[in-house]
């Protein structure tokens, strides 16, 4: 028998199965109109699709707990189809399909530590660090004396990601990038 939570145990952050997908509760509220029936209204995020939805339960209803675990793993390599990670504590290896990367694969460098959401002991989602330092492998030659005008150009990074960078950036420099916005933050001294 799977573990369940009754509505009075609902808390934000709880991981449950809704519509047979793992979901995290964002907000829950006890509502009881006038002399009417009690409900628990929740807002939740479907961890698979990322969609945020609302749902109403009768008070006392139960939902199944989702076996979801947030942990950290080291990125090993990609074989093109799958991305491979290792739990640094157990040395156990896990592979993730492209859907779990959510477009973040372009930030991953071998040896990087990433946040990982496991669902039923398989990788559901990969969360790269908010900031990553990556080396420029290709960009137009730098233009001196143009640091103040705010012009930009494309630079290709060692992971293959292409980002907009200021004109003074040169090949072999290491840059700090914000993976949430995909934007250049600063240069990093080598």
């Amino acid at each position, binding site marked *: 028998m799977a573990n369940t939570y009754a509505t*009075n145990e609902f808390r934000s952050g709880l991981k449950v199965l809704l519509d047979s997908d793992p979901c995290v509760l964002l907000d829950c*509220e*006890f*509502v*009881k*109109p*006038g*002399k*009417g*029936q*009690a*409900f628990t209204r929740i807002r939740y995020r479907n961890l698979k699709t990322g969609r945020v939805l*609302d*749902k*109403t*339960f*009768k*008070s*006392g*209803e139960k939902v199944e707990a989702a076996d979801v675990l947030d942990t950290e793993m080291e990125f090993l390599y990609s074989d093109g189809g799958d991305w491979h990670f290792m739990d640094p504590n157990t040395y156990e290896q896990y592979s993730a399909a492209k859907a779990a990367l959510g477009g973040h694969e372009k930030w991953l460098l071998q040896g990087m530590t990433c946040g990982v959401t496991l669902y039923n002991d398989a990788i559901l989602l990969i969360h790269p660090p908010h900031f990553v330092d990556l080396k420029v492998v290709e960009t137009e030659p730098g233009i001196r004396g143009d640091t103040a005008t705010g012009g930009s150009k494309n630079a290709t990074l060692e992971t293959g990601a292409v980002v907009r960078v200021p004109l003074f950036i040169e090949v072999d420099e290491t840059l700090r990038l914000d993976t949430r916005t995909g934007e250049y933050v600063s240069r990093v001294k080598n």
Partner: protein
Amino acid sequence: MRERSRLVARLRAFLAARGYQEVETPILGPDATPDRHLDSVPAAGGFLHTSPEFAMKRLLAAGSGPIFQIVKAFRAGESGRHHAVEFTIAEWYRIGPLEGLLSEMDLLLGDLLGTRPAERRTYRELFLAAVGVDPLSAGAERLRTLAEAHGHPGRPDDRAAALDYLFSRLVEPGLGARVPTIVTRFPAPLAALARLSDDDSRTAERFEVFWAGLELANGYDELQDAAEHRRRFAAENRARERAGKPAARPDGRFLAALEDPGIPRCSGVALGVDRLVMAALGASRLDEVIAFREEPDG
């Protein structure tokens, strides 16, 4: 806490100045409430009251005249932003039909909260405007389907459940925004212990007060007929049994008082004191106005 103390003192003074006598009735008694949507908290072999209603009506039957009480009440399982298992009720009864109580309620809100005169709306006109369906004449099946379409978990048990859900989902959010809203003439299935309207048996003389996003008060032109009380209690207990809850023996002393000598024509209202303080302070959670909220889990 200062605002709470000020409001309660002012509420007492308001009611005392209008001839209400303050009373105390037992919080602990032998019977649980038969209300289908309330669960009494067991204590000391009996139950804590969910409101002082029955005991106060026994006083009315005994000839008390207008009375009020400010007292803690307990409702099991009700815990949330606007609900606490242990909360404070102010409840008062005046002799005569509802109109006097409604206009007095409006004065009280102005006195305590500085609100402008309340707007009065019938349940039906609000429901029609927000839901687009007549709550009095639409078929039960139509209302149940509509509630389900608006997110009711599963099919509502009956007409009353569908109406309650639709009202809370679609109507309530728009109430009491600029001035307090007094909702009058609830549909008969939601009468609780209000008498049915003289001019339309599809509505009951029940009202609720909404202000600042909160349901503040609920009142009735009180049902006097003992046999009708028995019928309504029996209906509540049938609903409890359908929901897998234990039936509750209706309060025998209350029923006896209704039969002899009977209660006078009177109107009563229960006001949530904690919510009143929330409204006065613009608080968004009961926790902000209750000292030491320490509910057991579950």
